[in-house]
């Protein structure tokens, strides 16, 4: 009985449980859900699609997890995605003959660097000027799309340079879409940093008690700066993937409300929005769960406008289950039993 309770209270339980339910549901409701084909050197299937789309959210959630762990939040991620796409596509150019004005790698690097600078801006406001994170990132969130539109002069910028589409889709000859590789790569990077450095410990310490962190010799400002910069980089990479998927920069709609999905994924994964201990594995599974939910609902015929209603219900349900009150209800029941037996 104790083992079962331990299992339930583990932070991974909820996202895994939700994911499990969705997968089981799909196994019955969607024929061929788990079917994976290998054609022309590529893997095809529903699962691959889900992982492909989820990769963008996974990368965003990584950045968001660390920001939330320090007790902050970054609601500018969506706007930064728009900026990323705008910069990259403008640099490559929409030449109809399929050529690029600048080497792809350089354009991507510049785009991600610009997004990193956005992170520096957020970090500056939060750590140096000590402005509340929600308010500070609200500024870039409001201005970001305006900046993106400024860069593209208000237009959507289509890109005909084929290699650009490889980022969001598949490089010819590779079994899996590039997005999945990128997501795995970022996750591995984070895991490496966690294991080999104390950055994780420092971030948690700052999130739990920044005064004590400072008094114990931590450079709180640097740590806070770092997480916003990383969030900016994640949004930059996500923006490249997003723009590549539609082979264009769409400053109005790129990444719209995506930061909200990222926040949801992090919260689902067990990290408290007030900061402190964080769970990368939880965020990743949360992101995949949200994407699976979206895909499942589409498959059931739910339209894209109606989708949010279901998301909302699921969110509330999951957060209810995670809430202290419900946990205490379950605890008290088993505790009462123990007291009576004592």
């Amino acid at each position, binding site marked *: 009985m104790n083992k079962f309770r331990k299992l339930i209270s583990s932070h991974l339980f909820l996202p895994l449980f939700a994911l499990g339910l969705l997968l089981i549901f799909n196994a019955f409701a969607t024929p061929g859900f788990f079917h994976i084909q290998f054609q022309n050197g590529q893997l095809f299937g529903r699962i691959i699609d889900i992982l492909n789309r989820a990769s963008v959210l996974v990368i965003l959630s990584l950045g968001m997890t660390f920001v939330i762990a320090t007790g902050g939040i970054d609601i500018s991620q969506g706007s930064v995605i728009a900026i990323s796409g705008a910069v990259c596509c403008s640099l490559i150019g929409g030449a109809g003959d399929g050529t690029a004005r600048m080497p792809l790698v350089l354009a991507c690097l510049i785009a991600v660097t610009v997004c990193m600078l956005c992170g520096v801006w957020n970090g500056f406001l939060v750590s140096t000027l000590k402005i509340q994170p929600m308010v500070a990132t609200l500024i870039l969130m409001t201005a970001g799309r305006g900046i993106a539109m400024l860069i593209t002069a208000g237009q959507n910028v289509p890109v005909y340079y084929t290699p650009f589409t490889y980022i969001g889709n598949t490089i010819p000859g590779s079994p899996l879409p590039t997005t999945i590789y990128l997501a795995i790569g970022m996750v591995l990077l984070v895991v490496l940093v966690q294991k080999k450095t*104390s950055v994780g*410990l420092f971030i948690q310490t700052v999130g*739990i*008690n920044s005064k*004590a962190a400072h*008094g114990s010799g931590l450079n709180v400002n640097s740590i806070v700066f770092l997480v916003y910069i990383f969030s900016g980089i994640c949004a930059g990479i996500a923006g490249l993937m997003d723009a590549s998927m539609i082979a264009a920069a769409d400053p109005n709609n790129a990444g719209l409300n995506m930061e909200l999905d990222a926040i949801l994924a992090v919260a689902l994964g067990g990290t408290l929005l007030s900061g*402190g*201990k964080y769970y990368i594995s939880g965020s990743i599974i949360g992101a995949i769960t949200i994407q699976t939910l979206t895909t499942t609902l589409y498959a059931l015929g739910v339209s894209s406008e109606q989708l949010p209603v279901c998301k909302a219900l699921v969110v509330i349900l999951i957060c209810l289950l995670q809430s202290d009150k419900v946990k205490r209800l379950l605890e008290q029941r088993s*505790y009462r039993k123990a007291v009576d037996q004592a």
Partner: protein
Amino acid sequence: MSEPLLIMRGIYKYFPGVKALQNVDFTLRAGEIHALMGENGAGKSTLIKVLTGVYPRDAGEVLMEGTPIAPASPLEAQKAKISTVYQEVNLCPNLSVAENIFIGREPKKAGRIDWKTVNRRAEELVRQLDLPIDVTKTLDSYAVAVQQMVAIARAVNVDAKVLILDEPTSSLDENETQRLFAVVRRLKERGMGVVFVSHFLDQIYELCDRVTVLRNGELVGEYEIGKLPRMELISKMIGKELGNIQSVNAGGAPQAGEILLEAEGVSAFGRIQNLNLTLHRGEVVGFAGLLGSGRTEAAELLFGLARPEQGALKLEGKPVRFSSPLEAMRHKIAFCPEDRKVQGIIGDLTVRENIILGLQAKKGAWSHIPIKEQERIADEYIRMLQIKVSSPEQLIRNLSGGNQQKAIIARWLVTEPDLLILDEPTRGIDIGTKAEIQKMIVQLAREKNMSIVFISSEIDEMIRTCTRLVVLRDRKKVAELTGGEINSDRVMAAIAGGV
């Protein structure tokens, strides 16, 4: 003194895995000041929380003027005429003084709040308490001592019959404490029953009529203060003989070695003026003085938590400037802060993580200490300081206050400092652990040749452990006592002035 105002009988309270209160009785009479004492974990705060409706009781009864009550919320306790003034003054800083007194029960005229009456009556109340303040200013314009008085004014206004004061003097200096006592005595004359929860023996003997002692969740007894000698009271609280405590400094005070840190004319506005100080290896230097005299502020200047505006610091003869705690740590200085909850423990992290944090911060994020090494260090220091944990992976917030404090001290010992500054390391800790910490301080100076700065509000502690005593008053160093000069009378005189 008359019939009992409040009777609590046979109170039981359980938490998961813990029997917080077992069969506890508590009686309060009208017009008496009744102390509630016990070591950490004795159940004092749980009993208070049961009385004020924060926790529901599991068994027992509570009678208020003969009528059974069962307050299920602070509001119901208030309605039952029980008011509490907490240690962290629980008022709203953004509201005015007058509003804090009346909130929830503002007088109305024609359906809307009558601000004129609110302000007028608030003024009358604060004048009664000898408090000449502007009631229309926001509460956070005033110091903690004033805020506490406002909390009492609120209690009086609610016509409370029972007033609970929970560690009210922890943040007050001597003057403020006496002012508080005067007010409490006046309330006693008006027939209020006052419950006084505190660790300060002197104050309890000065103010209270009776005392109830709890230990490990059980009632030890109720006594008249006038008939209970201090030694007996303490032995009832800790359940063992007092002899142990006296033997802390059996070997005599540690001797001073070579000079480690010098402060010459160090000044910082609002903190300290013209501090001249020499710290030697192997000695324990105490900082004595009233609250607000500048002890913590001076210590923070030695550690990089604040920067000197004038004067200089010299470490082993070489001038140094610390722009952050990390720099001071790199120069082998350690600082264990005053308020472990706010500035010390990282609640959601494990004991192990809390212990190695200082060392890891010193090494930087990129020089990660491998897990095995972390575990080794944690085990070593848990053993050394006898920290009671079920495992090093236990979350530090589940430890008792004394063990938490030991863990924080361990954090600083791990960095192997030359100079260790301890700011009120024994505050809010039971007597047994207090003695252990004092013994440890003397040992560190003697055996590891560490230089220790020991800040405490309890003169006895410092007299027992210190080689030298630096006395501060009003942000200035006013005296330095050594050897035979270190006794209660000299120290009190130096603190008071006119040495």
